[in-house]
């Protein structure tokens, strides 16, 4: 029997979270070390998976299965394919970065790192689950650490509002998704939650068309789909840095991923029927999100809304239901995850030192924190789809996919690029260049070595991917093939 690496991956943060809670609260050094050790372990296992997955064989690999509640058809079944593996890697990177940038959290670090680990376990669980119930279980596991971390460690002025709004939105989303999921369960007549079995269930077309919107929309709310996106900026801005990174970087991918895995893969004909509507909403996401980001005066809100815009591209890629579009969506999920994690990390570094996020009261920070400035610029170039960075190689296939089904979507969505370029260049200039306000000149210092490690690592990933997209497409391509096969002839 092979080593159950996926279970190890999911249970490492759970165990670490429990151990952390058991440590005495005043042992801050040990708390940090345990959290870091767990994060490193997760990252190493994610890389191990990346290198040992066999793209030639494709399909789900590293399968594990154990009976859990057999009388209800619920099993503990794990496995990853070319779509979920990049997301596992992304989670590893973001959790590791999140621990590093939170190194100096002084307020109850024990609980902070412990909850961070639970959140990590939740996202890893969703990506690896091959049982619908298990997937839902991990999906919901995130609610409690997410809410607590925002309201306890968040930005004092808006944390109650942001935390409550985010939780309620996601709760409604998951209720809708749950209804759809249960319909799938009962409708299949198979009495099983096994995703692979359900994929082959052959639901009647009317059934698919009726229930697809429930499943897809329920999950896509967590992916930030218009018009249910407004929790994202509010929640992300209110959250502490590491949680913003994890929420925008990974949790939004959890929503999108579940919408793909459960919605599109189980109900492909429903997806074909509803695809034009999704395309419309997602295109609004892209353009409207970019416009709103442009008019923000709060540094962190700019990034919050840019996520809304970028997740629109992921959803467009999904809705094309063809090879190119899905490939691009897979790439964009990873690329956006890394980019937005870097963005939020840097916003946090700036706020910790300047104690303001108003763009108007910042300026000239490149002289104080050059690493942060360069990292933000690189993130910005990814964000505007500049060639040579991961954003470009992710967006191109999305647009190519859209050309094949709805050329107008490409033509409209591309405006998002120009608007993004405009606000990124403006924000970079106002925050990092120009005159430094005198009160900041005294107080602001450079970022720490750990911060530099995070900036360097995430930037490097985005540049490498921009020049060598095959690093990921070698995984995503076989993953996409099996989804397209479900689709039959596309739409």
């Amino acid at each position: 029997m092979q080593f159950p690496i996926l279970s190890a991956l999911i249970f490492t943060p759970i165990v670490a979270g429990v151990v952390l809670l058991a440590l005495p609260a005043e042992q801050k050094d040990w708390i940090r070390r345990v959290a870091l050790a767990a994060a490193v372990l997760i990252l190493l296992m994610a890389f191990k998976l990346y290198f040992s997955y066999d793209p030639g064989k494709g399909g789900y690999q590293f399968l594990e299965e154990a009976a859990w509640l057999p009388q209800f058809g619920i099993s503990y079944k794990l496995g990853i394919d070319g779509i979920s593996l990049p997301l596992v890697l992304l989670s590893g990177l973001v959790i590791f970065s999140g621990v590093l940038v939170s190194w100096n959290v002084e307020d109850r670090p024990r609980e902070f790192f412990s909850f961070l680990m639970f959140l990590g376990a939740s996202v890893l669980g969703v990506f690896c689950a091959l049982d619908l119930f298990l997937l839902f279980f991990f999906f919901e596991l995130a609610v409690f650490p997410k809410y607590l971390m925002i309201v306890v460690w968040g930005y004092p002025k808006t944390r109650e509002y942001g935390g409550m709004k985010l939780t309620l939105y996601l709760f409604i989303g998951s209720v809708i998704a749950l209804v759809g999921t249960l319909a799938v369960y009962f409708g299949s007549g198979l009495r099983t939650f096994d995703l692979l079995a359900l994929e082959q269930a052959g639901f009647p077309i009317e059934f698919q068309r009726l229930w697809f919107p429930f499943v897809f929309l329920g999950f896509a709310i967590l992916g930030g789909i218009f018009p249910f996106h407004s929790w994202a900026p509010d929640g992300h801005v209110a959250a502490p840095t590491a949680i913003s990174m994890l929420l925008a970087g990974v949790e939004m991918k959890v929503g999108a991923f579940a919408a793909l895995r459960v919605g599109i893969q189980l109900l492909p004909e429903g997806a074909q029927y509803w695809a034009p509507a999704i395309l419309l909403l997602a295109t609004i996401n892209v353009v409207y999100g970019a416009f709103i980001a442009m008019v923000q005066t709060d540094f962190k809100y700019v990034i919050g809304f840019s996520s809304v815009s970028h997740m629109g591209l992921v959803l467009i890629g999904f809705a094309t239901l063809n090879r190119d579009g899905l490939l691009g969506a897979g790439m964009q999920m990873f690329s956006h995850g890394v980019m937005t994690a870097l963005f939020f990390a840097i916003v946090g570094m700036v706020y910790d030192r300047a104690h303001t996020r108003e763009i108007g009261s910042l300026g000239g920070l490149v002289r104080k924190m050059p690493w942060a400035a360069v990292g933000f610029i690189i993130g910005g170039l990814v964000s505007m789809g500049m060639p040579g960075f991961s954003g470009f190689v992710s967006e191109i296939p999305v647009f190519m996919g859209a050309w094949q089904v709805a050329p107008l979507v490409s033509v409209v969505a591309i405006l998002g690029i120009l608007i993004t370029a405009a606000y990124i260049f403006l924000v970079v200039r106002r925050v990092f260049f120009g005159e430094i306000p005198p009160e900041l000149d005294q107080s602001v210092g450079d970022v720490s070595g750990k911060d530099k490690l995070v900036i360097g690592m995430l930037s490097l990933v985005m540049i490498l991917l921009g020049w060598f997209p095959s690093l990921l497409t070698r995984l995503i391509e076989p993953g996409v093939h099996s989804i397209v096969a479900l689709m039959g002839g596309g739409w």
Partner: protein
Amino acid sequence: MEPVTNHLLSLILFTPTAAAVFMLLLPREKISLLRNFALAASLIPFILTLVVWAGFNPQPTAAMPFQFVEKAEWYSAIRASYHLGVDGISLPMVLLTTLLTPLAILASYSIQERVKSYMILFLLLETGMLGVFLALDLLLFFVFWEVGLVPMYFLIAQWGSKNRNYAALKFVLYTMGGSLGLLLAIQLMGVAVGSFDLLELYQRWPGLNELSIPIGLSVSTVKAIAFWAFVVAFAIKVPVWPFHTWLPDAHTEAPTAGSMILAGVLLKLGAYGFLRLVLPLFPAESQQFAGALAFLGVAAIIFGALGAWAQNDFKRLIAYSSINHMGFVVLGIAAAAGMLNTTSPVGLLDKTIALNGAVLQMFNHGLSAAGMFFLVGVLYDRAHTRDLNEFGGLYAVLPVYGSVLIFTAMASLGLPGLNGFVSEFLVVRGAWPVLTLATALAMIGLFFTGAYILKALKMVLHGPLNGRWQGHLTDMTRREVLVMAPLMILMLVLGVWPAWLLDMINRAVAFLF
């Protein structure tokens, strides 16, 4: 030696990037080390270009339209590859780029602050420009087309003069905005043909009469839209009237070396796009819209010249002159576009002459514009003003500078015996039979060219000396002369004996079109 000789183009392309990465490790206080390192690093691509030049067979064949070709997997998931090669059109442009970059770096020795970042950006810029000339894959072309914007934006925004933020943002948004249509058209072609490889697109795209795209428009309409998307992107870069307004701002605010590269190389990217992509990929549309292109070119010639004439800012004057001179490139291209399908021997000859003129004009303008911008910079470094009304009578104080300025200005003006004359003559000669009216109007523009250049010379060098400069200005240093010397030698050589370059260009354009 095999790995080196087989990858000469990659080495030319990425040596500057490698050097830039290495420079990250150098200490920021060692200013002269940084400068010398950047200069040395930028000389390597130049030497390698000479090696390529020596091994280049000027006669292209159907079996080998491009030479020194490299092809490797890149983004195979969407059928884009790393495909490089040179022909008689791109090789002169590569030479121009690798020649101007070291000169621009040498010209930047006067930069005092943040030398490290400056030099790194400059080297990255060189890779971006070279990639456009070398790419034989449409997506790769676009990658380099856009990548060069980033270093240029920061060079203008960080080291520019007073109005730099406005100018830099205008430059980058204008160019990016123009590229959106190009990007869409590239995606469309990639989807329709199933490949981004340029050689394959040459074969299949022009004859394509069925689209696998649910767009609800006829193929010819889609192609016409794609044609204009390409044209607008390249016209903004050239720039062609009425897309030129970013240029005077960007050129005026950029640091001296930035202006040299902007005018010397970046504008050529747009013209090169016309030659490499628009004419071969859209032959029917090019022919159909040749008149419109000629009109835009002539408008650029006339309005560029008039605009230059009206300036009192020395640098702005030179900036407008670029619009004026690049108009001739567009005119030559438009003339060739109008004769693309011609079969008569006379027509073929006219077309080839016009294209020869256009390509040579690109090279020539690269030399003279870079020279002129550098000379403006030399004066500004000393006087800290560019207002022409403040100068006058400087010839007596700065004899070396005055002579160099007159020489370069005459090349720019098109004095026979210097390079500008040859190419402008060829363009006019080639365009006359098909675009008689446009060419006649362009000649009027040429008259204003003389007017604004003489105006600049008069206001700087002649007349009474402004008393405040007495004893405050020093003549050109040895370094500054060193920057100008290669440019001036080439201007003279190309004016007297252009055959060494024209032979290569001529064979390439005769083969391609």
